[in-house]
């Protein structure tokens, strides 16, 4: 079944998650959809599978416009989506899940369901038996079950969202075999991923999304050069990136802000081991890499939210190994989370109340002082708000400015996660102005972002993360945009890997 979208647009608040996307996915092929975190892949897939409704444009199946009001309607129309984390009932058996998740018309009886399951599993080489309890299945097997369910319900176009996350290599291989077979039988397969090698391995065509738009000429036939795809994904095309204007400092001679010695830490599947790193004061360090390559772990280690399982961390010479976030904060580390309203600020409280919270000791709130501080911040940081505005009523840029304004002057080090996420260009520039001013005052700034332009524009040093390995501290001056894109994609990564530096499993 041919699936196409025309000028599809979806807006969340001020964010245009999909902005006039037009693509055509021909039947009998596997189509890759690439893009970094937040590029709009998931939104597009949810629009196709009925989980979201478009704000503009249309979805066409076999060339006819359709309105997919909900996932059930989409499935009846022949489009089914396999989620990253399969949606199933853990206490049930595979058969029971199939029965309860499929509409009555698809599987009228238990016997029929059992037959369907067995037949489809055999045909696709899946290893799911009807009576297996879900709790005993691996993520890969649950994915297989989900595919069987969608096929049993009549899906002729399958959407797989990051299907290889959390499954073994062997399972991924058998999944690919099955997907190729499904495509050969005339089905349409949409494969959403940010893993270039998988897309190269599996897909017939590829489309790249960035910031809600289709990049370049649209759908391209595979194979494509990896560097090209990377540049499309991350921008940083070299030509388009503005030349660096910010005054850049030479290699710092100041003592390191953070010193990590043989640190190991783990978060889920991802683990850092034997990490040796000295992050200089008075410099901006950008963390580059595909999402989920370990940047998160490092950020959280640096602000004390993760405790290392081995090794030592010291901050300006003071050993803080095993200390909590509060100790890091006392030591002068401030953390600016990406999800401002979730981790950064208390949405319903006003700006003035936030400053009251930051007042030094004193049992009774000094409202006048708090309002004064808020007003000062509003002036200094050009925040469009009143002291009595609840923070959640502010725009994203103003929230970010407010968060920066709340950072005490004596801060030694800043840890920023996507500091300009969701901000317009002017706001982003203003935020960076502030961050660079902090750097110039001697503060260490570490930030992670998916935007290579941002890395190249503002970093003094870059740390590249690839497949769980970390490069040594690379001076920005040594990096060109194409080179950085290659490193992120793993090309010649060994040449920059920390000597004993950072490795990861």
């Amino acid at each position, binding site marked *: 079944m041919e699936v196409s979208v025309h000028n599809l647009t979806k807006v969340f608040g001020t964010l245009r998650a999909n902005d006039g996307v037009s693509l055509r996915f021909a039947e009998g092929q596997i189509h890759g959809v690439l893009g970094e975190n937040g590029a709009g892949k998931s939104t597009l897939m949810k629009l196709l599978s009925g989980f979201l409704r478009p704000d503009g444009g249309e979805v066409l199946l076999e060339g006819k416009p359709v309105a997919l009001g909900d996932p059930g309607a989409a499935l009846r129309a022949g489009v089914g989506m396999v989620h990253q984390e399969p949606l199933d009932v853990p206490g049930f058996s595979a058969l029971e899940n199939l029965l309860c998740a499929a509409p009555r018309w698809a599987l009228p009886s238990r016997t029929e369901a059992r037959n369907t399951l067995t037949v489809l599993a055999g045909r696709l080489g899946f290893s799911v038996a009807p009576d297996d309890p879900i709790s005993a299945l691996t993520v890969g097997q649950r994915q297989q079950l989900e595919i069987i369910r969608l096929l049993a319900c009549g899906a002729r176009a399958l959407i797989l969202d990051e299907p290889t996350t959390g499954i073994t290599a062997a399972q991924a291989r058998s999944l690919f075999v099955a997907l190729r077979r499904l495509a050969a039988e005339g089905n349409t397969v949409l494969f959403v991923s940010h893993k270039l090698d998988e897309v190269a391995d599996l897909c017939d065509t590829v489309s790249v999304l960035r910031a809600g738009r289709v990049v370049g000429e649209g759908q391209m036939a595979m194979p494509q050069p990896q560097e090209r795809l990377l540049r499309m994904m991350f921008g940083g095309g070299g030509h388009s990136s503005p030349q660096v204007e910010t005054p850049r400092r030479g290699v710092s001679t100041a003592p390191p802000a953070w010193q990590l010695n043989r640190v190991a830490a783990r978060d889920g599947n991802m683990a850092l081991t034997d990490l040796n790193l000295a992050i200089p004061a008075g410099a901006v360090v950008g963390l580059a890499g595909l999402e989920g390559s370990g940047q998160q772990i490092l950020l959280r280690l640096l602000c004390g939210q993760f405790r290392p399982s081995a090794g030592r961390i010291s901050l300006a010479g003071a050993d803080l190994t095993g200390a909590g976030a509060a100790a890091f904060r006392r030591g002068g580390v401030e953390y600016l989370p990406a999800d401002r309203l979730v981790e950064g600020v*208390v949405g319903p409280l*006003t700006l003035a109340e936030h400053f009251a919270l930051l*007042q030094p000791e004193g049992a009774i*709130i000094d409202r006048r002082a708090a309002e004064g501080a808020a007003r000062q911040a509003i002036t200094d940081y050009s925040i469009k708000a009143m002291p*009595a505005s609840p923070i959640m009523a502010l725009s994203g840029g103003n929230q970010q400015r407010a968060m920066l304004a709340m950072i005490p002057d004596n801060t030694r080090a800043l840890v920023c996660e996507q500091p300009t996420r969701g901000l317009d260009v002017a706001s982003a520039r203003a935020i960076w102005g502030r961050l660079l001013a902090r750097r110039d005052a001697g503060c260490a700034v570490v930030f992670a972002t998916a935007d290579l332009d941002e890395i190249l524009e503002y970093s003094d040093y870059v740390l590249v993360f690839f497949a769980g390995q970390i490069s040594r501290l690379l001076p920005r001056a040594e990096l060109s945009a194409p080179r950085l894109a290659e490193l992120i994609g793993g090309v010649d990564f060994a040449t920059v890997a920390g000597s004993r530096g950072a490795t990861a499993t």
Partner: protein
Amino acid sequence: MTTSNQAAPAQKPPKAAIRSPLLFGALALVGALIFTSIVLLSSGVPPLEAYRLIFLGAFSTPVRISDMIMLAAPLMLCSAGLTLTFAAGLYNLGVEGQMILGAVAAMIPLRLFPDLPPPLLWALAFACGAAGGAAWATLAAWLRVGLRVNEIFAGLGLNFLASGIALYLVLGPWRRVGQASSSGTEPLPNALWLPTLDKLRLAPIAPIVALIALAIIWAAVTRTRWGLELRAVGLNPQAAGRMGVPAARRLAESLAACGALAGLAGAIQIIGVFHQLIPSISSGIGLLALLVVLLVRANPAWVLPVAAAFAVFTVGSVQLPLALGTDSSIAGVLQGALVLFALLARGLSARK
């Protein structure tokens, strides 16, 4: 919240804030009245007459007014305490048990030193009541903060345990001489009862204690740094922690403070109302206070009117069985419906 309007012109407030909470309050009231009227009509009771008794009955005689005040006092104490836990984002269902333990603890000095001067004993009873309630709440806080047991379940479990303790004491060590009845312990000597106004069951100390406590809580929530931190923790513990607020500690403190207030309410039940320990000494006042707090949320300023109104409904409805032949529990239906519709209205307003 803050009241300054003089800042530079900027941001319009978001739409939801424009809609008056009063409008939704009025809608909730109308909804609750309609619902209750349907219940009344379906049992053949004239709604207007029933409402007259429920709303005005408590004011018909000095005796009823005094009964209303004696119910409102512990209700206000519990509600004031619950605004603290509500501000901290906790649903302290354990308030009943905290009240029971407060009552039990208040009995201890009264039993041990009955010969001390009564004013001293009352002070001791209040102090022990507050300590007992706070201790019981600290147990819930420990379960919540230390062992990550949801405070709702911890509270319910501790309520059962508290009832068990009260029952054990009533039937066991503290039973009346020669008796073992769950109707209660030996009544306190008259000298130890809180002094009442002539011919009324109104002990003025009870509402005075309640009002003072309410004022303190109001000031704590709205004026102190501690109260602000509590609200920050309740609204967003992660962000509050990022800004240096010891979140877990504030959670525990709010629970303990709520327990202390519930314990004071328990002490009032002992020395001002029942004058003995009975197994159901809390009389569901803690649960009623939960309903009050679902209406007023973390805003102590509204506790006084809402708790008073609930006390009015409850006392006014005592005469329903006699006057209209219907059950007095209709007041509970009205109270519950009010809260239900208020939650509905709030949910609707949040969806904008």
